């Protein structure tokens, strides 16, 4: 396997990580709009779920940008020009989401005007960002990103305003909402919050159904609007596409029978398979049909050095990430915890003997 392809596979895993971690944070912002009764308690629940991890989750986006910038500099330049508008809008969303979340978190009064307004900004930007990122992805996949003469032109907007792109953008929003709802079910269940658990279970099922419908619609539209993607889907990526659908059904089933931790694992795999099927269908193009892995990759020696750097970086990063999630999210004991937290975890472990994973 050549180094550029290897680097692309790593970047694709980075994309999956951003989707399942960063995407869920956007989803939490969306659910913040639908808190219904007990608004303050729900909001503080979302605050606690996001607070410690959102910045680290957001950093996967930086990893992706820097990775494409390094490994495929020519493609990075083309993407930046052709997707100038949706990228700028997604960027505004990213910025406002992060700032608004932290402003609300530290607002002097939880129900005050400052908190309310920034809470609204938090939610709206959490919808806009995945929408424009999803539409941008669809624009790339459609094979119509660049003008027919192969030139990147910011005013050539048909690619990301097509019905296909808008459907995929909406699906991205729904997927984020689903991911987030499933995570929140698990966390609410761990915290023995019966009402919240039930509420997020219902939300997860609804959002999952919407995602499935939009996904099917997108697949149908791709026949005419993204023929290259479609032919890849029905040829090379068929097993992955079928697996994606089956995992989707399995996720819904486990949610229905209240096996929440299994549902969490399944929705993560669902996202990974979905993005994987896109990648497989599009291979060997970066921007179909003009930019391929071969014609837009950096020199192999440079990529090799980047890969070594990534390996060293991940050697520090992954244990650190594991520690971060262990301290805040997982029920297993790790060194450095307070005695009281350790005891609470042991109690939880005993609780969840009936429910594996």
């Amino acid at each position, binding site marked *: 396997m050549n180094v550029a392809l290897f680097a692309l596979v790593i970047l694709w895993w980075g994309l999956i990580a951003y989707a399942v971690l960063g995407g869920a944070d956007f989803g939490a912002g969306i659910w913040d709009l639908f808190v219904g009764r007990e608004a303050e308690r729900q909001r503080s629940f979302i605050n606690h779920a996001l607070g410690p991890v959102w910045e680290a989750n957001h*950093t996967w986006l930086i990893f992706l940008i820097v990775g494409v910038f390094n490994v495929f500099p020519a493609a990075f330049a083309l993407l930046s020009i052709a997707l100038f508008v949706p990228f700028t809008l997604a960027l505004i969303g990213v910025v406002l989401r992060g700032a608004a979340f*932290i402003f609300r978190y*530290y607002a002097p009064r939880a129900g005050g005007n400052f908190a309310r307004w920034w809470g609204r900004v938090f939610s709206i930007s959490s919808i806009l960002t995945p929408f424009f990122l999803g539409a941008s992805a669809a624009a790339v996949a459609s094979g119509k990103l660049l003008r027919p003469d192969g030139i990147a032109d910011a005013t050539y907007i048909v690619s990301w305003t097509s019905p296909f792109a808008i459907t995929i953008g909406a699906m991205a929003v729904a997927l984020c909402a689903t991911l987030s709802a499933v995570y929140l079910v698990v966390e609410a269940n761990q915290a023995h919050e019966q009402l919240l658990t039930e509420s997020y279970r219902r939300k997860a099922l609804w959002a999952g159904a919407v995602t499935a419908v939009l996904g099917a619609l997108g697949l149908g539209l791709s026949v005419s609007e993204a023929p290259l993607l479609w032919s890849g889907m029905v040829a090379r990526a068929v097993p992955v596409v079928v697996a994606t659908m089956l995992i989707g059904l399995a996720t819904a089933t486990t949610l229905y029978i209240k096996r929440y931790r299994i549902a969490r694992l399944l929705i993560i795999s669902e996202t990974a398979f979905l993005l994987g099927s896109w990648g497989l269908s599009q291979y060997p193009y970066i921007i179909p049909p003009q930019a391929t892995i071969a014609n837009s990759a950096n*020199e192999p020696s440079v990529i090799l050095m980047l890969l070594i750097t990534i390996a060293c970086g991940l050697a520090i990063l992954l244990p650190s990430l594991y520690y971060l999630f262990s301290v805040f999210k997982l029920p297993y004991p790790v060194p450095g915890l307070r005695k009281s937290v350790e005891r609470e975890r042991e109690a939880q472990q005993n609780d969840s003997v009936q429910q594996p994973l």
Partner: protein
Amino acid sequence: MSNLLAARAQMGTSLAFHIIFSVLGVGIPLLLCVAEGLALKTKNPVWMMLTRRWAKAAAILFAIGAVSGTILSFEIGLLWPTYSKFAGQVVGLPFLMEGFAFFTEAIFLGLYLYGWSRLSPRAHWLCSFPIWISGLASAWFIVSANSWMNTPAGFVIKNGRVVDINPLQAMFNPSTPYETIHMMLACYVATGFAVAGVYALAILRGKQGEYYRKGLLLGMLMAVIATPLQIVSGDFNARFLADYQPVKFAAMEAVFRTERGAPITIAGLVDQNTGQVRYAIEIPKGLSILAYSDPNATIKGLDQVSRGFWPNVALVHMSFDGMVASGFFVLFVGIVFWIFYWMKKKAVPENRLLLWGVVLSGPLSFLAIELGWMVTELGRQPWVIYGYLLTRDAATTAPWLNISFLIFVLIYVLLAAALVWLLLRVARSPLPKVEEVGQLQEAEEVGV
């Protein structure tokens, strides 16, 4: 505004905004580490109060730093796609490393800022180390990439293509050691004075107690160690620039004609058309001595390149003098502060003039950083990658840059206003009562 000017304005505004938060992101974690370490060692709850208060402010500041940094990583592509294609090939490595450093910082920030009630005191304190180390490393990586734009290295242009790429050579280009150290020190100078300034202002407004004195002292300690080193580093930079970036050096010092025994020109009104500097103070032979330790050394003037390749001399010269003046002012304040401190047998000086000087040093050291970056960036114009790519050739072909600039300015104004309002609220919220360290932690957790 032309598209090029709008792109430059947006990039400049974004950098000027982000730099404030990245500087605090390097400096504050070290203060947190020291203060929390002192709290654990001395069991003095005042140190823990300072740590908790700074951590709360840091959580807000660092979030703004993270999002404003994201703007920059997007803007490299959105505003300068041709630059990104060139730089991505050669000098992507430090950007990638900076990405990892930032990632590590974000992970441990999460643990540090939200882990008070979950981590043992010792584990919590240990989490502050990766934060300040990776923050410092980030500064090094990203400034090394900027150094490469000033003195490009590690590639060859053959038939219009970039080949023979050596990313390590690009990262360790000639400017790297000078520029990176100057910026790393600047982070500590500015953070030290900013923190000290906050407590000096509180003392001036009649607040008393150990809390304010310790906050002031720790800030001043960081500043007084970093500032003299920074002045020395500045001198090294000037000597280096005279040889390696002579056009920038000539613009900084407003030297239009190459001459032997050149004087130092301080302040004055620069007229780029006539090459005159009016109302300036001149120190005869000063510049030759400063750059080469030889009163008769030759200093290359702007006449070494044709006029089309001159930066805006008036702006660069003024920025440079402003930076140097601010630097010496804060050095002076730092020295006087510690002389008073030792003369009064380790009592915090209460001289109002001196305390006002400390208050003023905070914004002035940030001003020095902004001006220093204006010297670096404006002094390189019209090039974005010196000698290889002109800024005007690097800009995007996308229209609507004026609108984009306007939108981002509005976002910055909005963020700045909300941030200042929120930080003032945090600062005004009453201090918790001085109790045992452990109790304080538990008590405040409920509030957060």
